[in-house]
């Protein structure tokens, strides 16, 4: 299966690889997937508590090129968005942007789940109501 140019670009030059300090209250962490399924994504956001804007986002992913590209793209999209805006990111937008084939749609679903988990982690840490995280799987 051939990869789209955008997947190759994110795979070759991944944006925002790294780790944020998860002990900070301003940092939310989402860890989704499972090693035995062949993909694990960890996505982190750092939120400005004054404005609710996501000022930094980092990821690390174990998975195929499409999984790596989906999480790299997600961190790019998250930066500068408010937490509420970030919740509106839909996995199908990732599918479209990266031109993922049907067998790779689960990579985009995983990225969306990671975003929601990271936001939820941030909310819980800061005394806000936990969100209802419905699993897509």
């Amino acid at each position, binding site marked *: 299966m051939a990869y789209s140019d955008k997947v190759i670009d994110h795979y070759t030059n991944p944006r925002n690889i790294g780790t944020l300090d998860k002990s900070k209250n301003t940092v939310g962490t989402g860890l989704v997937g499972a090693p035995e*399924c062949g993909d694990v994504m960890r996505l982190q956001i750092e939120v400005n508590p004054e404005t609710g804007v996501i000022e930094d986002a980092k990821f690390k992913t*174990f*998975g195929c090129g499409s999984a790596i590209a989906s999480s790299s793209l997600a961190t790019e999209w998250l930066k500068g968005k408010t937490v509420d805006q970030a919740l509106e990111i839909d996995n199908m937008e990732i599918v479209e942007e990266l031109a993922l084939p049907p067998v790779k749609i689960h990579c985009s679903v995983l990225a969306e789940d990671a975003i929601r988990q990271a936001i939820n982690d941030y909310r819980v840490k800061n005394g806000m109501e936990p969100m209802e995280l419905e699993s897509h799987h």
Partner: protein
Amino acid sequence: MNLPIYLDNNATTPTDPRVVEAMIPYFTEFFGNAASRNHPFGWKAEEAVSYAREQIAALIGANEKEIIFTSGATESNNLALKGVYEMYAAKGNHFITVSTEHKAILDACKHLEKQGAEVTYLSVGEDGLLNVEQIAEAMKPDTVLVSVMYGNNELGVIQPIREIGALCKERGVLFHTDATQAVGKIPVDVMADHIDLMSFTAHKMYGPKGVGALYVRRKNPRVKVTAQLDGGGHERGMRSGTLNVTGIVGFGKACELCRLEMADEAKRLSALRDKLENALLTVEESYLNGNKANRLPHTTNISFKYVEGEGLMMGIKDIAVSSGSACTSASLEPSYVLKSLGLDDELAHSSLRFGLGRFTTEEEIDFTIKCVSDAVQRLRDMSPLWEMFKEGIDLKSIQWSEH
């Protein structure tokens, strides 16, 4: 050195130019039907086929009359299993095979189970090898056939074929082996190994695609299989269809080259394979899959823990290999062969299979070592699992989300 580098010779091999050269006249000049008995076009084709039969038989220690031409190993496997099941129905309906066989065997067995066969699927040890006692224990009075692959396509491990053959002979049970990966790479002798039926194919040994053979023993015992295609009754009534004369000529030439060059080639390839393997096993948290001693000379299968196989292959885009990762298959399941070894799914997802071949050079191996080692490092730098491992976190202690 030209890129990309081909290290997937267990999937298929390039046709040797000497084979192509031998084939060319049979496309246009000697195009006759080998079954045309009444004119020189047919005679010429028939002569070429019989010469190829001799070349092929010589490679495996058989008589040329014991070679039944097919379209390839998948067809040979189907003909052997289904053909024996039908031909020997009066004797029994029990087959014994192994969980790490190729799908052409396993799916043919599934098909036969629906028709009333009883099939025992033996499991292998964590090194991928079967123990001959497992077969002895599984045998029953109504066991008709034992089918065990010679060399495994994913791991390269070689099963104890001679011992299995001897046991089958002693018990009066037919023995079939799928020797697709072994013939032409290591010495295979149907007499010494007590093989009754054997599948093999040209394109894994530098011959063309679309032509293979089933060896069917003619003496001690005389074995017959029921034809699976109705037609002109070619190939002693076991496989109808106009012979692929051009392909057969190439198959014969490929066998002759293997017979003459195999010993030196196996030495050269195992030295290159060992160089590659030893270097890659110095990468932290890398593991060899399958038995190290009993192996085909050109294959190695290595798992790089905390890196996913398809992601890794994308990082080594100048090198063509295969992975046991789910993502490379439509099923999203990791390799059933690696799982049969008792490997964690995670390690199965992290595996690469390297298949060296006649045209592999040392320069290519050196490039591969560097390229794979670098890609593993790069992907680990972006792997959350690697980070956790480095922090001493036990990945099994984490509650992973279902998916």
